Structures are given as structure tokens and as C-alpha cells.
């Protein structure tokens, strides 16, 4: 796991598969490490859903002139659902 953290120092983004290849291990082990690091607070999931991610969370958008209606007509209704997950340190 320390290797995993070290590799990330170069600032590049990597997919889980790429990390497994780079660290010469399995994807399952990488996921296990991610789960551990997330639980212990070393890495953090990037959460886009709390940011204006769709109609339901539009109560915070006071700039939506006509309320959540105009929010929805501009933005994907359920926010971006299928974008995968990102973690950062």
C-alpha cells in the first residue's frame, strides 16, 4: 500500500487496472487497498453528487430563476450516473 501511495506522487491519474499492472498485483488487491485507505481517511472519494448533480439536489441552487425546473432543463436529470469513481489523497 505504501507503494501505491508513492506512485501517486507523480500527479497522474490512473485506473484501477493500470495500478494493478504497474504494481504487479491483482485488481482485487488494489480495490482492497483502496477500501482500506478510504476507511482510514488516507484517500477520499470525490463526490460529485452533492454538487449540483441533478434535480433532487437543486434546492441549494438559489440562482435557478424558476426553481428546480430550469435546473433540470439544463442538466442531466439524474446527474452523471455512469462516470465511475475517483479517489484522491
Amino acid at each position: 500500500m505504501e507503494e501505491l501511495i508513492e506512485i501517486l506522487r507523480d500527479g497522474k491519474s490512473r485506473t484501477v487496472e493500470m495500478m494493478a499492472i504497474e504494481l504487479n498485483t491483482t485488481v482485487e488487491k488494489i480495490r482492497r487497498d483502496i477500501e482500506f485507505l478510504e476507511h482510514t481517511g488516507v484517500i477520499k472519494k470525490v463526490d460529485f453528487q452533492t454538487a449540483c448533480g441533478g434535480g433532487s439536489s437543486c434546492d441549494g441552487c438559489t440562482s435557478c430563476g424558476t426553481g428546480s425546473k430550469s435546473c433540470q432543463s439544463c442538466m442531466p436529470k439524474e446527474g452523471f450516473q455512469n462516470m465511475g469513481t475517483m479517489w484522491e489523497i
Partner: protein
Amino acid sequence: MTNKNETVMALLGQPNSGKSTLFNALTGMRQHVGNWPGKTVEKKEGTFSHNGRESLVADLPGTYSLSANSDEEIITRDYIASGKADVVCILADSSQLERSLYMLADYAGINVPCFLVLNMSDVAELQGKKVNVKAIEEKLGIPVVSFSAPDRKGYDVFYEAMERAVREKTILDTSDLEKRYEELEGYNDIKALMKEGVVAGYSSTWLAAKVIEGDEPVIAKMKAAIGGDEKKKLEMLLAKIDKGVVQTGERKFAWIDELLEGGIDAGENNVSLRKFDRLITHRVWGKPVVIAVVLLGLIGSFIPALPLMGVGMLIGMIPDPLYNGMISAGCPMIIATVLCDVLIRSAAFVVQMLGFVFGVTLVFGLLEEIGVMARVSYVFDNTMGKFGLQGKSVMPFLISFGCTMGGAAGTRVIDNWGQKVLTIALAWAVPCGAAWAVIPMLSTIFFGAWVPVIIVVILLVMVLHMWLTAKIFGRSLVKEEDRYGMIMELPPYHKPKWGALFRYVFGRTKDTFIRALKVVVIVALAFWLLSYTGGGDISGSILYKIGHFVEPVTKFFGMSWQTFMAFIASSLGKEGALGVLGTIYSGTGTISVGSMVGGETVSNINELLVQNISKPEALALIFAMTFNMPCIVALAATYQETHSVKWTARIALYYTGVALLLAGIAYHVGLLIW
């Protein structure tokens, strides 16, 4: 043991390890739910009998481990250490043993008898995973059983294991784990300082590990228990440790892996990237491939737009005959004009726009459903560094393709204020959903089949624009700093759910139609009023006077005063420009469309525009509109996110200025071509 000589068993395991199912199966109706004293955490207890003996079961909260990070974990470990439970049943998910045994590893060192249940064995079997239970049992020194809650027959083995654990008081053998811990710097010294009995129920192994991990409750108790010199020594040793939790975690995982060695037979587990992914993550080919896919998608999205344009054009043919009909039927001119010149013409424009809304929404929605958008986000993740931004900034940009306001809100995940502002400033350059409808529509009206070329040029200019903006604004907003990379889990590709997709596309098209219609009608009405003169000749109206006044300046940017007004209206919202274009050439008082074009009659608005606006001017207008500020809502959202009037104003003025500049350039390029 309870007073009535009942055995007390605690169920311990990570979430989704099947605890509840087991608990329910054991206790049936004989359970009750309450709260742990003083906490909001649910407490489930029940009873069951086997072989004539009554037993009490406590279903402990499902937690990842036994750290001090949450109430649930503290409650769980306190309960166990208190000795209230005679035996602990530790559950793990057989299909994910490498992960789910972490709880066991964190339990190691607690001196309460336990036994291990490798649950969900049915799932593991389906996945082709075989577990060597005997080997694991030998290494751990506690009963280990393979189990599957729905399978009634497995319960005999379960009860047997439980009874053996109670009878023999089997404690988890931690010698192997201990050996690994000893590799850690300072472990032996720290362990020596751990006084037995201070925190009851935990061995010095467990305590030392927790202290290294920075477990505050444990550290506090230990410091309170040991005296002055030793306390200082402890503090000194701890100060030398960096990221202790990662160090012990690695040892625990290594212990688990050794435990499972030869114990799992999972078949081959090769990591290989799927072909398309390999292409995308390629250093050189990644971006071109992604761009090509998105471009093809965009251009393809214009296809469903054409029929709707046809419909819109037909609507656009209504005003003329309808007007004549209404007048001869005795309808007051003003009503007829408003209805025909303002309302119907606006509707005609909006309907034409709809086709593009539908197409673009469908294409982007499809790309996201399939999983391509996630790859796009990955590919450009790494480009963010060139702008001075973190990888996750790529999401606000992608969101801005739909709505710049959403993009601005999306920057909430960016903690650094400077980077946030820069991201928003750059996101303004990304054409939003409204732009993807209005711009192609106008381009089609003026340039027909050349639209794809124009779109490509727009995208190129957009990239250049962003690069330049990053250079200009970057200097004062962001500075070089250490960047840690990101890990991304890309979703698997899958077939789109067509039903849901189309429902979403239709819904959004409908919403856009209503919204755009409102905007266009209001703008059209406003401009109609401004251009109203009783006599019918537009040159007497306020609008004309203002227009002629500013025209020398607007010509500089390649636009006549009319198109300039349209450009200004697009600052409110892209479709606002349509409202202007619809009325400014037909004027009021002028009854029919025909009177503006030197005698020739034109049958619909599209032709009207083509006749009145030269190609170079149209090009100028299109570029000006595309790179203008997105809309008034985006402006408000930018202020809301940046909390800075200064920066919001700077960005707005910058974009307006650059838009005009680009218009001028486009105009002169247009002159060269046409």
C-alpha cells in the same frame, strides 16, 4: 454467561457479510431491537436454543474494522472487550476473503474466544472459488466453518463450531501476525510499554498495534495508566511513526494473504485492459480517439435534427398568410402582428432548435450510458495538469457541456479557491446544451452542409481559447504545487437502457422547449416593442435609432447593428438571440415579411435571415454567440460559487471582449471565403 447460565454470543463482521441473515435465521421471532445506551446505534439481541440449551445472540453493528473512527466501532469493541460475550462469531464473505478477513485481522489480539464463519459459500462456489477450510483452521487455531445462510443443513456444523469454541475457549493464534508487526520500527519497544490489564480484554499485541495506528481512545487510556518516564518514552516513539495505520494495515493484509495461500483456488486472474480501453489509455492515441468518437457523435446528433427543422420551417410559413387572413377578417392589427410576428415566429425558431436539443441530448446521454464519458473524463484528467488544475476538474468541464451553471456548481469539489475560479473561467468556454442547439441550427440555416466543418472549427477555437485563458488567468489564480495523482475506477461498458434513455431525452427536450419558448417570446416581444412605430417604417423606432448609433462600432467586429443586438441578447441566454433575429428583420408596422427585402417576398424566417445577413456576418455572429458568456444564470452561479464580484466581472468582461474579437476575425476569414 447470563444469570440463567445461557451462553452469550456476539456476531461480528463487515457490512454485507451476512450477519443479519444469520441472526434472523438463528433467532426467528425471538429478537428485539433497541439502542445502545446513549447512542443512536441500533442494538439487536435475540435468543435461540439448541440441544436443550438457551443462548443469547447480540448482532453487533456491521463495521469495516475495530478502529476508533466511529461510534459503531467503539461500541462493538467495547462490548466484546467487556467480556459480556462468551464467544464471538466472526463472519467473512467467502467470495471476497482477501478483503473481508480484515475484520479478523483487526480482531487478532483480543482475548475473547471466537470462531470464524466463512459465509456466502454459495456465492464463492458460483464464482469458482474454493476455500481450504482445514488449512485456515490449522493456522488460526480456532474453529472455522464454511457456511451459507440459506442452506439449512450447514447449521449443524455451525452449532458444532460454536459449542467447541465455547467449550475449548479457542483464542485466535496471533503469532504469525505478531512476527510481522515486529518488523515495524518501534513496535517492540511500544509493546513493552503496554501494561496488561489497563484496557481489559485486549492483549499487548493489539494495544501496541492500535497505538501505532494513532487510535486516540487507546492512546489516552495508556498514557493515563503509565507513569511519567514511560509516558514520555511512548510519546517519543509515537512521534517517530508516520502513517502508522498504513504500516499495520499492510502487515494485516500480508497476514491474510499468507493465511489464504493455497487456501483459495480462484482460477486465473489476469489483468488486461479491454481493447478499447487500451486504446484510450494510450499516451499518444488516447485523446485523438476520444475526440474522434465525441465528434462523430455530435455530428451524428444533427441528423435527427433535420426533420424537426423542416417542421419549424413550415411553422415559419404560417405568419404571412395567417396575418393576411386575420386582417381581412377584421382583426385589429396589433393583435395580428403580435400573434404572427412575435409568437408564431418565435415558436418556429424554437421548434427548429428542438431537433438539435433532441439529437445532442440523445448522443451525450448514450455516450454516458455506455460508459464512454467516463473514459473521456479519464483521458482529460491528465490534461488538467497543463492548465494548472487537478484531475478532478475535468468533471465540471464535462458537466458544462450540458449546463455551465451545473459546471460551476460542480466545482464545489475543488477545495482550492484559485483552482475553482480558474476551472469556472475555463468552463465558460465550453458550449452548453443551449449552445449545442442554437449554434448548429443557425449554422444550418446559413451554411447548410458545412455545419460539421464549422463545429470542428468551433471546437478547435474552444481549445485554443481555454489554453489562452488558462495562461492569462492562471498566473494570478494558481501556483505550482505538489499534486498527488488520482485513482479512477471506470465503470464497465454496458448496453444502454433504451427505455430510460429515451424517456430522459424526451423529458429534457420538452423542458427545453418550454423554457426556450418563454425566453424567445419575451425577448421577441421586448424587441418588437422597441422597434414599434405607428407608421410601419422601422427607421422611426427607438431601436433603430440606438442601432444606427452603435453601428460604426459593431461593424468593426463584422456585425451589423441587428446581429449585434442578437449577440447582446445571447448574453441572457443563447436562445435570446433567436428572439431578436425573429423580429428585428421583419420589424413591426411592417406587415409582412416581404417588405424588408426590397420588393421580393420571402416565405419564411430562415430565408429572411439569409437574405438580410451575409455569410461572413453570419459567421461572425455565430462565433460571437458561441464564445460569449453562457447565460445570465451561469453568471449568477459563477458569483455564487466564487463569492467574488471582482472575478465574476472580470470573467464576464473577458469573455464578451474575446467573443467580439473572434467575431471580427471570423468576419474577415468569411470575407476571404465568400
